[in-house]
């Protein structure tokens, strides 16, 4: 699949920001050749994970009445829309879906190239509601820190929760996800590649773990 450099920068939402000083290590870097370690989610796996997370969100919040799903660019909005569709399917409730760009709230401004990936648009007043932030990969937690700042500038939610497809460990802040597709402990040099139909021009969804050639176990999937 064609992987533009911009795509690579966004592919692993948080992978490359772990330590800005060494941020050059990335999927598009010129260092070690990256090889597929394992397929974390197939399209079917991912569909089931969406369904489960959607149920968990409704269960935790005793219904969906107060919930607003807010997807973080670039893949969060697509995932949030899927969760909303799932919830309306079994709960009959239309959950509002918003999008959030955290670029201007990041803590690594000036340390690496940063560009807004899309608009911030939350269709309802978040004050008094439960905001569920939705992203593909949770890594250092810095994006989520920025997202919480960005959300509180829009209002005062009753609670903020976090849903992610993959928690790859490596947190640098005291942040945890409330709803997780899969926990996947990874090394810094590894790379979680998320490809969604809506955002990545692929025929079906996949989430894969890639790593530098020869430095770890090879693909076992």
């Amino acid at each position, binding site marked *: 699949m064609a992987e533009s*450099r*911009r795509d690579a*920068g966004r592919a692993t939402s948080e992978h490359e920001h772990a330590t800005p000083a060494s941020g050059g290590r990335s999927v598009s870097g010129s260092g070690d050749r990256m090889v597929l370690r394992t397929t974390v989610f197939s399209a079917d796996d991912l569909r089931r994970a969406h369904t489960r997370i959607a149920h968990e969100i409704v269960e935790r919040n005793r219904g969906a009445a107060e919930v607003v799903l807010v997807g973080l660019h670039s893949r969060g909005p697509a995932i949030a829309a899927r969760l909303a569709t799932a919830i309306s399917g079994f709960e009959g409730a239309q959950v509002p879906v918003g999008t959030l*760009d955290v*670029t*201007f*709230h990041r803590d690594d*401004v*000036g*340390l*690496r*190239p*940063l*560009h*807004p990936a899309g*608009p*911030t*648009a939350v269709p309802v007043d978040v004050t008094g509601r439960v905001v569920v932030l939705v992203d593909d990969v949770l890594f250092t937690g810095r994006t989520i820190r920025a997202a919480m*700042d*960005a959300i509180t*500038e*829009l*209002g005062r939610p009753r609670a903020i929760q976090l849903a992610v497809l993959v928690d790859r460990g490596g947190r640098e802040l005291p942040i945890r996800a409330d709803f997780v597709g899969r926990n996947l402990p990874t090394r810094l040099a590894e790379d979680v590649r998320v490809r969604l139909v809506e955002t990545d021009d692929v025929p079906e969804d996949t989430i894969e773990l890639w790593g530098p050639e020869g430095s770890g176990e090879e693909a076992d999937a």
Partner: protein
Amino acid sequence: MKHLLSIADLSRAELDELLDLAASFLSVTQRETPKVPALRGRTVVSLFFEDSTRTRLSFETAAKRLSADVMVFSVATSSVKKGEGLRDTVATIAAMGIDAVVVRHAAAGAPHRIAEWIDASIVNAGDGRHQHPTQALLDTFTITQHRGRDLSGMRVAIVGDVRNSRVARSDVQALSMLGAEVTLVAPPTLLPETLEGWPCTSAVDLDPLLPDLDAVMLLRIQHERDASTRFPSLREYTARYGLTEDRARRLRPDALIMHPGPMNRGVEIAAAVADGPQSVIGEQVTNGVAARMAVLWKLLGAGGDVV
């Protein structure tokens, strides 16, 4: 991108990026808290050697909405009045530890010189008759908000004191980069001596152009730069070049009416036209803050080019 000195320095990709950023920041400025922490800890100095209220305020608002600290160097009450030269003034400011200087100066090229002297990012906020890149950016942004990014085949007239106008120079470059066809309209005495190298045409009659225009931009007669000595009387100027109510009626209903301000109502534009439904003059001011946020972010925050 380290400085913004001239529209001519921008590539098409950079112009596109600045327009995208301006759209992002426009939505920020429309929120209940119209402010983001993007440039926290950065210091922006406004250094205006020429009078300006709106541009200076616009830049200061933009910097504050990015959470940058703003220092205002007011020439009228400063050491410049005591005879300090430009280089010493700038060196003093630089020594205080700053990240960007927004410069307006009566001499063309002054911002370029300052960029050679100090390490900070320099934003040209108007230098003599040369360039006013952020005005061009906000004008272009305003038009693209109404007409989309591709301005191919769009006809824009810039009417008035073109000879003295850095806005016209910058606008021509930015608009033509997006494909617009720009015509400069003025009495022969207020047109540049040559249009060589300008991607535009000129005309001395406004009336025949009116029905075909997609946008008309009126320029102020700059008395401070001798403009009013170049035609017989303001009444005569208004009669031939002013956007009167009668002329405005001959524009297409969707043509945009623009003015960089400050306006001389009743001279280059009739009051009722400036306040009329086709006027986007108020939007230009709002968009100016967003466009200047885009520039400051691009120079101080973005940290690299779009790849």
